[in-house]
């Protein structure tokens, strides 16, 4: 099984590639609409500004094949911004439209705490999670973000707290997303990616 990594220019693509390579998975990075349309499994890493991702998806004509593939049931994993873009919109760029594959809006974390939410935090898994299978409940994951999706979403399988609760892991049908960076989260992150690979194949 080859994982197609959507490369819109995000800084964390090489780390994701390396993490998959360590797990023995084949991957190819692309920004070509037809390659996305034909993918067997999709991974969207993202880091930085929400607008950069949404604009790249639109300008490089990746939105339609991406949404189409996900709706056809192709396994999809979104990392950080790659999770946030699944929602309807984000307070980081309210005028832009997300992929609307999950209900709700991405909000800013409260300014009562230090932002970005940067570093290693624990998550609370609130129901059966396939991505977190076999990972210790007290495991830490690496976060680097100031905006996040709603924790109350029906597909949220784990939440995190930094000033407010937010979605750390979402899973619904073939759609998976994590707010943290599994490619930077040591053994726990590696295990999570392995779980996605198992689900996707």
């Amino acid at each position: 099984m080859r994982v197609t990594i959507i490369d819109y220019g995000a800084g964390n693509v090489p780390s994701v590639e390396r993490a998959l390579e360590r797990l023995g998975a084949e991957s190819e990075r692309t920004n070509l609409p037809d390659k996305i349309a034909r993918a067997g499994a999709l991974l969207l890493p993202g880091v930085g500004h929400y607008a950069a991702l949404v604009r790249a998806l639109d300008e490089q004509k990746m939105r339609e094949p991406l949404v189409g593939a996900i709706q056809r049931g192709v396994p999809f994993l979104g990392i950080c911004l790659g999770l946030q873009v699944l929602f309807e919109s984000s307070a980081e760029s309210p005028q832009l439209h997300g992929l609307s594959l999950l209900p709700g809006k991405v909000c800013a974390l409260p300014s009562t705490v230090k932002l970005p939410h940067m570093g290693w935090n624990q998550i609370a898994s609130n129901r059966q999670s396939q991505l977190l299978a076999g990972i210790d409940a007290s495991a830490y994951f690496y976060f680097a973000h100031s905006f996040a999706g709603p924790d109350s979403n029906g597909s949220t399988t784990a939440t995190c707290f930094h000033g407010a609760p937010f979605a750390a892991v979402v899973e619904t049908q073939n759609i998976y997303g994590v707010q943290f960076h599994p490619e930077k989260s040591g053994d726990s992150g590696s295990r999570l990616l392995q779980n996605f690979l198992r689900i996707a194949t």
Partner: protein
Amino acid sequence: MSLAHRIIPCLDTDGERVVKGVNFVGLRDAGDPVALAARYNKEGADELVVLDIAASRDHRPTFLETIRRVAAELSIPLTAGGGVRTLEDGRAVVRAGADKVTVNTAAVERPELISELSREFGAQAVVLAIDAKRNGGHWDVMVRGGRESANRDAIQWAKSGVSLGAGEILLTSVDRDGTRVGFDTELTAAISKAVSVPVIASGGAKLPEHFVQIFKEGAADAALAASIFHDGAQPIRTLKEFLSASGIEVRFPC
């Protein structure tokens, strides 16, 4: 459930080799940043910082190659910098595999550099390194490796840096650097209180108690040290066990 306090080893390199305080027990080639990176990754470091302290233009390609080789060893975040003067320099560092870029002297001389990098990579990828030295009742920003005063107040500079788009401050006490008498808790607490972003404290660490102090009294979000880790005097795991026993939340790799 809250953010763990981070322990960050720092590799000062001449672009290619680790140059300060290296005598790592059990490493065949102690000056090799790749071997050190692999070891720290395994031992539970929360991040790694690699700096080019020579920062000579001629050695740039070598430093980028070092970043590439170090990044390949890591499953934790990597911050790199030293001599980043332009957006293009920052791009090269990120493309080589760093998650965050540090800027120091060049940002003091041309603060827009912070905004340029932040716009392109996001605030979470821009670390403003500040070398601060006490001068009477305040702290001066020092540039060119801590040798020259920029005649600027460190607290004010930290605040401006954050408003320009820095997502983190790497704060080195020039007074404490290399002394091993402990971090400058007063300086760190003052900066940490003044800004809304995480602060990494650096300079003066030797004992586990110093780390407890900088987290409890200095309000640091992360603590950085170099030689005490390199020379094997302070294994990361025992440091974290000490911190945990002192009531400080830390992450243990599983």
